[in-house]
């Protein structure tokens, strides 16, 4: 198990440098639509009079923006995105990855931070307008109905649920008393699992009529009136031995 949690430090040792780039949402959405090998565009890095200039150009085929509802909006994503370069000064940023098998490995350190900005263009403005329109739609809408809704509650002679319930009851029949010994066996095995039981639960478990069950319980158990386990039955002390879960049952003497 030493593998799990062990961080693979190869990236750190090699001092692999990566860039951390902040990308607008619409752009990442477009990138998600990329096909094939995942090519999304081109990055041009140039040195213009000593200053580095980085620009990203989106591929042509990825410029179609789908508005909400998946219909072509007629808006095109801008293609040119200059990068604004920033320093990594105040923080030391490292990149680590996690696989599904929970292996963690350090990929490298961030050497450059950048922000991808769209070049301001007509296209961009249209895009923004589209976004605003979508966002400004209220989430909840009041709608007027022409006709009143009459399909929900109809008077019924007897609900289907009730019918089922009655049928089930008849099928089960009244609870029959079985031998006392059998009931005791059932009770003991139940009390092995838990110490405190509600009378209703015991009736459920043993399927005995309540009065009969109570008789038997009065014999072997006590009824807790106060305390945390209110209104519960538990076995009498001489009948129980809860020590880390023993198995044997105590024999009752009838």
């Amino acid at each position, binding site marked *: 198990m030493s593998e799990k949690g062990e961080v693979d430090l190869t990236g750190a040792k090699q001092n692999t440098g990566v860039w951390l*780039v902040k990308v607008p949402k619409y752009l990442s959405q477009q990138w998600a639509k*990329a096909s094939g090998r995942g090519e999304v565009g081109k*990055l041009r890095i140039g040195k213009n009079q000593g200053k580095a200039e980085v620009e990203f150009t989106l591929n042509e085929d990825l410029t179609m923006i789908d508005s909400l509802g998946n219909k072509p909006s007629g808006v095109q994503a801008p293609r040119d995105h200059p990068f604004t370069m920033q320093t990594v000064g105040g923080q030391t940023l490292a990149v680590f990855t996690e696989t599904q098998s929970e292996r963690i490995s350090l990929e490298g*350190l961030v050497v450059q931070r950048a922000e991808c900005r769209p070049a301001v263009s007509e296209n961009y403005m249209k895009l923004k307008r589209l976004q605003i329109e979508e966002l400004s739609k209220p989430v909840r809408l009041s709608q007027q109905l022409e006709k009143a809704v009459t399909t929900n509650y109809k008077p019924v002679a007897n609900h289907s649920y009730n019918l089922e319930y009655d049928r089930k009851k008849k099928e089960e029949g009244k609870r029959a008393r079985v031998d006392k010994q059998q009931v005791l066996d059932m009770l003991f095995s139940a009390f092995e699992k*838990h*110490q*405190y039981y509600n009378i209703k639960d015991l009736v459920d478990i043993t399927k005995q009529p309540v009065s009969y069950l109570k008789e038997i319980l009065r014999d072997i158990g006590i009824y807790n009136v106060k305390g945390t386990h209110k209104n519960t039955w538990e076995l009498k002390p001489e009948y129980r031995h809860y020590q880390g879960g023993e198995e044997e049952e105590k024999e009752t003497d009838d």
Partner: protein
Amino acid sequence: MASLGGSSSSSTEYIVRVPKNTSKKYSIMAFNSGDKVNCSSWTQARMERDMSNRRMYGVEETEEGAAGSEFGKKQREEARRKKFGIVTREFKVEDQPWILKVNGKAGKRFKGTKKGGITENASYYIFTQCPDGAFEAFPVNGWYNFVPQAKHRTLTAEEAEEEWGRRNKVVNHFSIMLQRRLREQERGPDDDDEEGEKGGKKKKKKGGRGGDLRIHDLEDDLELSSDESDSSGGEDGDSKPKKKEGDVKGKGKKKKKKRGSDSEANEDSDDGDFEGLEVDYMSDESSSEEEVGEEKAKSNKEAVPKGIDEASESEEESEEEKQNEEEGKEEEEEEEGKKTPVQTKKKRDSSGESDTSEDSDIDGEAASALFMKRTPPKRGGGRGSGGSSRTGSRPGTPSIDSTSTSNTLRAAASKLEQGKRQVVGGSSESPAAKRLKMESSSTAVTTQSPAPSGKSTPQPPSGKSTPSSSDVQLTEEAVRRYLIRKPMTTKDLLKKFQTKRTGLSSEQTVNVLAQILKRLNPERKNVNDKMHFYLTE
């Protein structure tokens, strides 16, 4: 110089790819640059999720298993919570913090907390360059801010507040953590641990001591002078831990530790705090002697007064110190009495300590006092029981050995005889056990100590002493007059002899009154459920 055209610009183009199905999830591990983390210097690292926030379904509740469990408890608890609208947030593993351990057990530890909201408005991508020159962009799944975890002990908020208040006084900050450590050990006592701890600390302490300078007030000096002599040359608080080492663990440590904390707490007070304190005499030692002597002479073994003032406290203190000592009690008390005015002025540690223990005593005494008051005739029994209970409840404080004060005591006592205060003479009757602060008086001593021949202050003649010139005198005559006129309760009587007018302290009043009543032996009758005394002439 303006350059013409696009000169000196060269650019290279790279293809950017966003790989589609990566099994790897990328996250950012952010360190504060102030921590000077150098990832390449790590030899090995382990990282796991911090699962401490997970509330297991059964963990907080009662144990599962046969004993003590109820049938269907889980469901019922769940239903209850739903009914009350308690919504417990789901425990998501991906949102839990990371624990990063670098370089094994002895290395650094970091805790990485997830930063929220990074994927809400914009996405972060990691651009890495591939061998073929193209860039690959991976979306960042989570951002974790990693902070180093302190391995050294830190103060809690309350402790920090305390120490902040003392920041101008404490120069040696090492002692702060040391005190805390030792305090903790006391709570969970384990001698071995302490030994080891102290042993380990020894070196540091020595070093600390060397360079240590503790600003101490007069308090500290006095306190140390009154300390046991086992402290070796320690003049500053640091000596306390050393003392603790040397001492017998139980008592000495406890006492000193308490002192330590007490002294530290006490330093909080400023100069002006003690101005309002009541002390009987400010400066004159002899007068304090006299006062103490007077009180001794006056008091008897009767009930303890309910009121408590400074003087009483100091006397009580002195009382306590010597309670087990039969011989030389007076001297001790006197000395203590001398000390206490000084001490009370400065609120000494020892006084503080004995005060706290005294409080319980005072209560006990007051209780026995009440008991006493109700049944003055039953002196013997009451006193006996009261006394014994009192003695039992007193903590064992070290008694101060002193033998030299007998003379002064006698001198004080003789002064008393001539004094205007009335001395209750019934002391001879008093049983052995009862001890009050006032008891320090010779009268008590006479009966209680077996043979304090030289010590016992000669009793001023029993019976009425010449009344002084003040208006109301607590004399037998006066009491008799009141009781003849009409039946009164002890409370009423006390009211008649108000402390301001008779010049006695409340305790003294009580004692004297009790003695008078004993002598008078008035009739008793019950009126309105209260015991009234009256005399028929």
